[in-house]
């Protein structure tokens, strides 16, 4: 009986994987929807019952995979507070937009073997709702009318060993900012809140 229950249970590792998968799809979707890279670079992939555009640029893929690989490790150690996707103007270095993915640890923080029995289907439905909102955000976000680049910043706890090829970054604040909170989802181990902050022109 117990074994049967554990079959569908989500471990801390599995939960971190779900979070990273969501971030990967979310980031790619943002890069496509906000028009930061040419649409030819993207390929349509079906996931969570949605058509999501994934970048086929090797350098972007490599950057995202190494970032999220490290993030998964940190998520399992529960040291991550927030993941921020920063969109900056290439020429002026001004921060144009910031997507915040706040992480909360909802389960028993001290138990590394904790399991969640929330059905995967339900989590994926929640994720789908958020991804839909991201795709729909084009309706209210201002046009990024300049050459932009992006960066992923991970807000961690202080007592962390800095891995190779990682460095401290400056917080990216936006002047005259406007913030819109999107839906959140939870694996019952990690809770993920998504919000977008953008520069208000008027």
């Amino acid at each position, binding site marked *: 009986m117990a074994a049967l229950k554990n079959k569908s249970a989500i471990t801390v590792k599995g939960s971190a994987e779900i979070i990273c998968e969501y971030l990967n799809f979310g980031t790619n979707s943002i890069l496509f929807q906000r028009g930061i890279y040419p649409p*030819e*670079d993207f390929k349509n992939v079906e996931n969570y019952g949605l058509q999501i555009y994934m970048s086929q*640029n090797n350098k972007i893929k490599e950057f995202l995979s190494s970032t999220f690989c490290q993030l998964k490790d940190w998520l399992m150690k529960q040291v991550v*507070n927030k993941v921020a996707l920063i969109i900056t103007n290439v020429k002026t270095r001004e921060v144009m937009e910031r997507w915040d993915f706040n992480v909360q640890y909802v389960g028993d923080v001290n138990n590394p073997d904790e399991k969640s029995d929330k059905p995967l289907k339900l989590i994926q439905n929640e994720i789908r709702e958020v991804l839909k909102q991201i795709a729909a955000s084009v309706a209210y976000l201002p*046009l990024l009318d300049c050459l932009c*680049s992006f*960066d992923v910043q991970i*807000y961690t706890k202080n007592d962390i060993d800095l891995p190779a090829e*990682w*460095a401290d970054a400056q917080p990216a604040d936006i002047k005259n900012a406007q913030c819109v909170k999107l839906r959140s989802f939870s694996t019952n181990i990690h809770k993920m809140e998504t919000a977008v902050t953008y520069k208000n022109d008027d």
Partner: protein
Amino acid sequence: MSQFNYINEMNSLLTLDGPLTKGPTPRWQKKCMENSSSVNSTLNSSKQKSITSINASNSKTPNKCIDNDLVRTKKTPKTPKNKSTTPTPNKGAKTPNGADRFIPLRSAAHFELGNFKILHSNDTENLSPTSKEVQRTMYENLHGTDISSQRILSYQHKAPSAPEGFQNPRRVIYTQTKTPASAKSNSRYIPQAPDRILDAPDIIDDYYLNLVDWNASNILAVALGANIYLWNAGTGKIDQLMELSGSDYVCSVSWIQEGDYLAVGTSMGTVELWDCSQIKRLRIMDGHSARVGSLSWNSYILSSGCRSGQIIHHDVRQRNHNVLNVNGHSQEICGLKWSTDGKYLASGGNDNVLNIWPATSGNHTQTQPIYTLTSHQAAVKALAWCPWQPNILASGGGTADRHIRFWNCQTGTCVNAVDTKSQVCALLWSTTYKEIASGHGFANNQLIIWKYPSMVKVTELTGHTARVLHLAVSPDGSTILSAGADETLRLWKCFVKNPIKNKETSQLKGKTSLLKQSIR
């Protein structure tokens, strides 16, 4: 002299609180002395010296009593003398010594610095412990975490930014434009029934062959089994061009761009060249080991694709016709098309690969393709180059793929892809409208006309009872011919020019040419 006594008295009174009894006289004093001396000089010159010396030594304060009307009239003559008596002025003398007022000097007071100091004094490092604590708790309340116990980390190998000159494609959403131009002309009338139906007995139902071609002098060549027939679309006259013996059959036909020469690929692996005006075979070109299912002309070069996956470029003028052999496919080549500008050759094979070959100066291709595109999941037979954008190629996949894909051959990227839900056997661009026609197999065996680039269906033409194998277009661009596996050829008048629109454009053209003339 009484007046001097008075002056002296006044001086002593005024200098009581002033520390400077000796030293250089201020400017305003000097001015006064000047005046007084000038007054005296009118009386006699010997006195003047003594007065100035007294003034200099005692640093007299001004005396308004001395002022009189003569001041202005005689000013200059004595100045050099005065200057010589007073030492060089120093800066301290600028402000009046005796005054009890403080007059601030704006230029000397550093306002900018002061402002800066006031505004930027609250550096975090200089904050008092209490205000630091306030800030920390504020942050904690707002963000739920401690400001000091958090690090922001990022991966150092950053992703590249978009290429220079790239413009946000989302601009379209933000710009207010009326309905796209392609939507309005959707109301064009397209006859749903074929204009004519011709019988094509014994046409081979084989996806990998190319059995129909229509040339510029309005003659349609159709291969039916071992025979090739020429149908003059203007007169309706039918000629038999040739017949192969035994079990051999014709695998492909292709007209040269201009003229009456027809290239014929056979199941023996030979390529024959026929002069159709005289019904005469000109030459036989060998080189292939298996049947030749696809042919394409580029000026005097005839490219042939074989079942072995080999492409041979024949120079039809030369005795040694075999210019180049290239291997780009592992299986039968069923689609072969030179671009309209002769810069690229596209080849599609049964190995699901679409190759784009760049042309060399000899009108044939290089030995390696520039792009090997593997997006199709089935054999790539249907190939068509866009007439108005020479680097856009449309390709269609077989039963397992069912997609029409559009390629930018300069960048090698897939510009657009659309799932047709049916095998794509043939593709044909309209030269009249910005549209593309596709021929399909199971389940509806229909022709679909699409708007390009929106890929909105304009219409579907049904009628064939088996799959549409080949498409050809009439030289005037108005009619397309579809060859079906149901042994019929159907002619569809779907790209007929709008006569009203034509007039307008011709008028417009006349106007522009007039304008050009007047500019010259």
